[in-house]
């Protein structure tokens, strides 16, 4: 079992409903490509450390994934991300080996303690927690 993290930044001009729709799309795609979404985080609108396409903010989405080698095709997912002009950036990181080396547990449904505990309000985290 391999685990991954997939993060992408959506154009902030895209309304929230569309971001949600896009999230569902990506999730569907991931599932279709043999992946399993372990956890999903919406960071909401966040200031970018440097402008991308002259934009200063972006809407962040983060997925924790799991999949078997040979079944989950990250390549195809990344290909689709590149096609989408609303996605400014994406980053896929394989984490299982690093976690194992560090003796850390693999990510589960429950978000880490300090983050939002209420799973029913995924977009709620966006406003409050990030200062700066």
């Amino acid at each position, binding site marked *: 079992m391999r685990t991954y993290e997939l*993060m992408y930044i959506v154009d902030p001009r895209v309304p929230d409903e569309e971001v949600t729709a896009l999230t569902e799309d990506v999730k569907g795609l991931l599932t279709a490509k043999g992946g399993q979404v372990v956890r999903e985080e919406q960071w909401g609108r966040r200031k*970018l450390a*440097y402008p*991308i396409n002259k934009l200063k903010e972006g809407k962040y989405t983060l997925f924790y994934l799991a999949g078997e080698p040979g079944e989950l095709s990250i390549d195809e997912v990344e290909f689709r991300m590149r096609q989408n002009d609303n996605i400014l950036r994406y*980053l896929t990181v394989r984490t299982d080996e690093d976690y194992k080396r*560090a003796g*850390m547990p693999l990510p589960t449904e429950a978000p880490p303690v300090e983050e939002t505990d209420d799973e029913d309000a995924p977009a709620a985290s966006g406003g409050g927690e990030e200062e700066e």
Partner: protein
Amino acid sequence: MARGRRVFFRRRKVCKFCADKINYVDYKDVKLLQGFVPERAKILPSRISGTCARHQRILQRAIKRARHVALLPFVTD
């Protein structure tokens, strides 16, 4: 009269990650990473921070990932 006696007591630097037994640095942990990218947003050399080679590598990778997704800047001016 002591002639040119300059005795520096340089405190031995200890790798922060070894001390804290951290073996994975998350690129999302901006607060942690920011401590290793001073003003100009360059990566702080291990010679200054005292980070051991292994952890410097892990740290470096995390910083570069964070930069890609605009959590950290490449440059500041």
